[in-house]
C-alpha cells in the first residue's frame, strides 16, 4: 500500500481540494449527477455546464487516461485522491456514459493515433455521447451471428440493418458499432466501425419495457454512412475488439450489484417495518427471515469478493480469477432482493401509480421489473456461465461464447 502515503500525494491532495473548492458551483452541492438521469428533456443549467467544462478541461473526469488525448494523466493513487476530493465536496464527476465506461478504454487500446486524437478528447470534455450498436434481433447471446451489413463504397462504408437494446441511442451523438463485412465467416467477418448518429440513414425508436419507459431503443440503418477512417482495427478484425469492450462493460455492470433501486431503504429495514419482530427480536415471518439473512450474507460475501479482487489485482502478478464470477453472483443477489422487497410490502408492493402507494412502494415494483434485465444484458447469466466453464475451468467449448 506504499502509494497511499507520501508527502507528494499530500501536496497533490491539497491542490485538488483547493481546485474543487474554487470551481465547484455551490448551487450543485449534494445534487444528483445529471449524467445519471434517464430523462434528459431539460437543458443543463449554466452551473452544471460550468462544472462539466471545468472538470473536462483538467481531464479529471477520466483521470488515468493519457494527457495527450485530454485525460488527466494521473497515477491510480492520484486518481483516487481526485475521486475522494470530489466526493468530499459533495460534488459529482460530470464526465461519464458509455464513452468513458466502455468505448474510450477500448479505443485507447486499439485505435490509431489519429482516431484517438479525434474521438478521445471530446469524451474527456463530456461533449459527445456514445451508444453501443451490438445486439440485434437475431443476435443476442449469440452476438457473433449479427447481420447488420457494411458494404465498401470506396471512400466509405454503407450500412444497412438494425440494432436493438441500444441504450441511450435517442440522446447519442455517435455510435460504436459491430457490422458484418464478410458473410462467408462468422467471428472473422465482423468489423468495428464508428459513425455519427446525426445523419438521415439512422432512425431511433425507444422501447417501452415491462417496467415502463426505458433508455433502450431499436435503431435502424438505411444506407447509413461510416467513413473509412472510422474503422477501428483491421477489416474483419472487430470481434477481438468487441470482446475487450464487453469486458469493460461487464466490469462496470457488476458495480451495480450494491444498490437496490427501490428507494434507498435496505430490505432488512423494510422487513422490520412491514413484517415486524416477535418477542425474541426475530422477524415475525421465520421463512422470510431465513431467506433474507441468506441473501444478506451472500451479498456481504459478494462485497468481500469485490474488495479481494481489487486488492489481488493490485498486489499479485496475475489478475484475480474472482472477477469472472462477479456479474452472475451480483445480479442474482440483487434480483432476489427485489423479489423480497415486493413480498415484504405485500399488497402495497403491487402498486403501479397513484397516491395510495408510497414512493418506496412504487419504486419497488419498477425496480423489481427492471431488475429482470440484469441477468440478460451485458451477457446473460447463461453466457456468463459458458465463459466461466470455458475460460476459467477449461471445459470444452461447444457454443463459441466469447
Amino acid at each position, binding site marked *: 500500500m506504499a502509494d497511499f502515503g507520501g508527502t507528494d500525494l499530500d501536496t497533490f491532495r491539497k491542490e485538488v481540494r483547493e481546485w474543487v473548492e474554487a470551481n465547484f458551483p455551490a448551487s450543485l452541492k449534494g445534487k444528483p449527477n445529471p449524467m445519471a438521469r434517464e430523462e434528459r428533456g431539460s437543458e443543463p443549467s449554466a452551473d452544471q455546464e460550468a462544472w462539466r467544462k471545468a472538470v473536462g478541461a483538467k481531464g479529471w473526469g477520466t483521470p488515468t487516461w493519457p494527457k495527450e488525448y485530454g485525460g488527466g494523466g494521473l497515477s491510480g493513487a492520484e486518481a483516487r485522491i481526485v475521486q475522494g476530493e470530489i466526493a468530499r465536496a459533495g460534488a459529482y464527476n460530470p464526465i461519464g456514459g458509455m464513452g468513458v465506461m466502455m468505448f474510450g478504454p477500448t479505443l485507447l487500446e486499439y485505435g490509431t493515433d489519429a482516431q484517438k486524437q479525434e474521438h478521445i478528447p471530446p469524451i474527456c470534455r463530456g461533449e459527445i455521447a456514445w451508444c453501443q450498436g451490438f445486439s440485434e434481433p437475431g443476435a443476442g447471446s449469440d452476438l457473433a451471428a449479427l447481420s447488420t451489413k457494411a458494404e465498401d463504397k470506396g471512400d466509405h462504408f454503407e450500412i444497412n440493418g438494425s440494432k436493438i437494446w441500444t441504450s441511450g441511442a435517442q440522446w447519442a451523438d455517435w455510435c460504436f458499432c459491430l457490422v458484418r463485412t464478410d458473410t462467408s465467416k462468422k467471428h472473422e467477418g465482423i468489423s468495428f466501425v464508428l459513425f455519427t448518429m446525426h445523419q438521415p440513414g439512422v432512425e431511433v425508436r425507444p422501447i417501452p419495457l415491462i417496467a415502463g419507459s426505458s433508455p433502450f431503443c431499436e435503431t435502424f440503418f438505411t444506407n447509413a454512412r461510416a467513413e473509412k477512417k472510422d474503422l477501428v482495427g483491421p477489416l474483419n478484425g472487430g470481434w477481438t475488439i468487441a470482446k475487450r469492450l464487453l469486458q469493460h462493460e461487464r466490469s462496470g455492470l457488476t458495480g451495480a450489484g450494491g444498490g437496490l433501486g427501490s428507494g434507498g431503504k435496505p430490505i*432488512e429495514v423494510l422487513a422490520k417495518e412491514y413484517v415486524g419482530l416477535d418477542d425474541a427480536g*426475530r422477524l415475525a415471518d421465520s421463512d422470510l427471515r431465513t431467506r433474507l439473512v441468506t441473501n444478506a*450474507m451472500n451479498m456481504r*460475501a459478494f462485497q468481500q469478493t469485490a*474488495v479481494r479482487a481489487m*486488492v*489481488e489485482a493490485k498486489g499479485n502478478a496475475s489478475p484475480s480469477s*474472482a472477477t469472472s464470477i462477479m456479474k452472475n453472483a451480483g445480479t442474482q443477489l440483487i434480483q432476489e432482493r427485489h423479489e423480497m422487497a415486493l413480498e415484504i410490502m405485500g399488497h402495497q408492493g403491487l402498486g403501479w401509480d397513484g397516491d395510495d402507494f408510497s414512493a418506496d412502494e412504487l419504486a419497488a415494483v419498477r425496480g423489481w421489473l427492471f431488475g429482470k434485465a440484469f441477468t440478460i444484458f451485458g451477457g446473460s447469466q*447463461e453466457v456468463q456461465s459458458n465463459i466461466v466453464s470455458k475460460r476459467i475451468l477449461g*471445459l470444452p467449448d461447444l457454443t463459441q461464447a466469447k
Partner: protein
Amino acid sequence: MAVLTEEQSMLRDAAKSWVQEKSPVTAFRKMRDSGAELGYDVAAWNEMAEMGWAGVIVPEEYGGSDFGYLSLGLVLEELGRTLTASPLLASGLAGASALILGGSDEQKQAWLPKIADGSAVVALAVDEGPHHRPEKVEATVSGGKLSGKKVFVLEGMAADVFVVSATEGGKVELYLVKADDAGVTRTKLSLADSRGAANVVFNGAAAEKLTGGAALLDKVLDRARAGLSAEMLGAALQAFEITLDYLKTRVQFGQVIGSFQALQHRAAKMFTELELSRSAVEAALSAIDNDAPDTAELVSLAKAKMGDTFHLVSNEMVQMHGGIGMTDAHDAGFYLKRARAAEAAFGNQAFHRDRYAKIQGY
C-alpha cells in the same frame, strides 16, 4: 487468494509441499483402515509440530511464532485439501486461543510451550447435546470441582487437558481440566468421518478457571469456527478440482462429460460459490488478527457460507462421478463424510444464519 507476506507465502508453500509428499489422501485412507486409536497419525503430527505449525498463533515468549490466524488458516487450508487429520485445529488453534486469551501467566507457562511443540494436546469440551448450543451449559463447578457431560469433543481421546465450559453460581466460565484426573472418563466415538472425538464425563474433576466468562467462550469458539472454515475451504477446493478433472476425462456418448452444458453450468456455480467462500473465510481470519469489532458476524458468515459450499461441492462430487463415486475405493465418500462432520462442528449453517441475523437486529 489474499495478498500474502513473504513469510506467509513460505509457510503456505511449506505446507503445500509437505501435504503432497507426506500426507496425500492415501495416508488418510491408511489411517482410517488401521483404525487408529486417536483418529490421526501420530508420526505425521510430530512432523507438523517440528515444522512449528502447532505454535503459529502462540506468542514467541511461549515458544510460538505469533504469526496470526490468517497464517494458520493457510496451513489448515492445505491440510484440508487431503483431509489430513491432526489435533492442529483443536489444540494449536482452539485450545491455544483459550489459553492466550484467558490464561494467567502461570497457566500460559504451563501449557502454551507444550502446545507449540506438540507435546501436549488441548481439546475444547463445550457441547452437551446433538446440536451446538454453547449458551446452554449444564456442567457445573463447585469448590473447584467440575461435574457434567460433554459430547463430540474433537481430539477428546488425544487430549492431555480439556478446556471445559461450566457454570459457577449461574455464570458461564471456561476451566482447564487435566485428562488424567480421576474424575474424568472418556469414551471414544466412532464417527463417519473417521476423525478423533470422544464423549467425556466429568465427575468432580479438579478445575482451574480461565478468565473471561461467556465472552471468552464466544471468542474461542469464533477462532475455532474460522480455522475450521479454512480447513473446509481446502477440502472443498480439492473435491472440486478432482471433480473437474473427472469431467475432462470421463467419456460417454463419444465425448467427455464436461462438454455437456448441464454439467458445465453446475461446475461454474461451484466455482462461483468457492470464490465467494474464500473471500468470507479470509475476511473472518483477518478480522480476528485485527481484533475487528464485527468479528463475530464475519465468522458466522464464513462458517455458514463455507458450510453451504462444502455441502454443495461434496454432493456434486459424488453425483458427477456417478457409480464410481459411491464406492469406498474412491475418495469422494471421504469428502462427503468430512463435509457433514465439519458443517455440524461449532454450529451448522442454520446456527450461524440465526446468529448473523440476530447481530443485524432482526
